């Protein structure tokens, strides 16, 4: 089976040329990660673990020192592939203010299409469609700087959607947003994944967001440490805590009750499951 995103034995270092001799810091140490088309993968890891570096390898911002990365079968180290790769795998960054270039929302969304030389009528159609998809159509004539953080991130996502990508890589897109903005962005991501089959790679520090993915990979010290479904990953409460990560509150509550000797499933990741399981305990207890 062909993988949509495929990193094989990737090594990557940052080099500080300012030092004499230049200092190399190895950030990715032999990482292999394969992502299927249409999959929703969350990437967890503490600050400095290498997760953003890996994401940047997937749209050819970073080229590995050794190993290979392919996107839709195209190798990132072939310069001729750059444009098709960037069209196919778009990236959304943490700070919405750093990725909005135009003074009107719809012009911002059209920016990449204009650079690609797309026909004006086609640009109009795609920009409108992308803005409708993220629920920002009615703000199309607004100035981006007057939008909320969640709205700005949705505009950034629309800019990528307009290129009809197969995959969106998101690097902590909700870190600077309030709960409402976070929910808007998460709902948009999930809808794109479910309804349009867009492959999603989401880097996040919020465990409750990661719990909504199909798959979680945990990166630590530049190595891929854990890989599995959210249930499988979050049931390893102690491992996650030792890695400086966390688990959703519901998982931790169930885990604590289990440790206290109560019969409660260890793979609880939603509020509903948690409430049901505790209700069952309380009924049995009475």
């Amino acid at each position, binding site marked *: 089976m062909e993988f949509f995103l495929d990193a094989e034995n990737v090594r990557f270092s940052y080099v500080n040329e300012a030092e004499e001799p230049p200092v190399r810091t190895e950030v990715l140490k032999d990482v292999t990660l394969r992502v299927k088309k249409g999959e929703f993968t969350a990437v967890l*890891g*503490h*600050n*400095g673990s290498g997760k953003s570096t890996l994401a940047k390898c997937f749209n050819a911002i970073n080229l590995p020192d050794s190993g290979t990365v392919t996107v839709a079968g195209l190798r990132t180290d072939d310069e001729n592939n750059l444009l098709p790769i960037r069209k196919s795998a778009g990236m959304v960054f*943490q700070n919405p203010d750093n990725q909005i270039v135009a003074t009107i929302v719809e012009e911002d969304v059209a920016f990449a299409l204009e650079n690609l030389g797309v026909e004006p009528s086609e640009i109009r159609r795609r920009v409108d469609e992308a803005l409708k998809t993220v629920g920002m159509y009615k703000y199309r004539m607004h100035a981006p700087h007057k939008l*909320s*953080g*969640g709205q700005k991130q949705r505009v950034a996502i629309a800019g990528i959607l307009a290129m009809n990508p197969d995959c969106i890589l998101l690097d*902590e897109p909700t*870190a*600077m*947003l*309030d*709960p*409402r*903005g*976070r*929910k808007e962005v998460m709902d948009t991501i999930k809808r794109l994944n479910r309804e349009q089959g867009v492959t999603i790679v989401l880097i996040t*520090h919020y*465990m*409750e967001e990661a719990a909504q993915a199909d798959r979680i990979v945990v990166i630590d010290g530049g190595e891929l440490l854990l890989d599995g479904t959210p249930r499988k990953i979050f049931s390893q409460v102690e491992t996650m805590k030792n890695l*400086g*990560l*966390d688990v*959703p*509150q*519901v998982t*931790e*509550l169930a885990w*604590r*009750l289990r440790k*206290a000797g*109560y019969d409660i499933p260890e793979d609880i990741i939603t*509020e*509903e499951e*948690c*409430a049901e399981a*505790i*209700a069952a*305990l*309380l009924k049995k*207890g*009475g």
Partner: protein
Amino acid sequence: MAIIETKELTYVYGENTPFRKVALDKVSIEINEGEMIGLIGHTGSGKSTLIQHFNGLMKPTSGKVLVDGEDFFADKKKLREVRFKVGLVFQYPEYQLFEETVAKDIAYGPKNMGLDEAEINRRVHDAAELVGLTAEQLQKSPFELSGGQKRRAAIAGVMAMEPKALILDEPASGLDPQGRDRIFDMLKRYHTEKKNTVIVVSHSMEDIAKFADRILVMNEGSVFCFDTPPKVFGRSRELEQIGLAVPQVTRVIGRLNDMGFDLGSDVYTIGYAEKLIRARLGEKVQ
């Protein structure tokens, strides 16, 4: 005694323009000496506007702000004094580091207060110790530190001024779970040792629930409530309606209450939820 008090504080952006917006609407609150306060509210609720009034960065359109019982806007000479009494740490404070070494950066505030060398030294080391920076790190350029270390260095710079009230805007934003815990542990330690007022603005109810004596909830420029955590979280349904996310465990207990288990409405930490459920199970088993 109140360290910060506002009386019908009102602030209007763009007065006499079509963009007129009331950012604060007759806010009257009292924050006492030595209190640990959590301040929450969605984007645009007025919380940033409010804290900028606390040290005179913004001037009320009407109403009063008293620091230490004094109306510092009435006497211009007092304004400088207020900046030393009330220390404000902005969001992403690490972008404001500028000195050659971490030690000099932390010393910048105390130096401007006109303190002598020995006192400046004591304060720099005190603050560095509180935030967990080593003597070796103090001699480094701020730009050689990791993201989390830079954040802590920037906070130390304000702590070193030993303000009677320390205000931090989203101090844990963008950090991983361990980094977040570290910041909050550090603030708790600072609070315990210095007995000064600490006000933390955060989007995360989970984080605020862990440390606050009282929580101030802002909504649409007005005080929604200002009370102890159990009282505030007891209104979790209303909080969700105004766009705030209550902790996941609070929602789970809410679901259990809906199912007919009367667990109370003031549960907001995992530890308390665990205790409550175990007590309930114990009572029934006996």
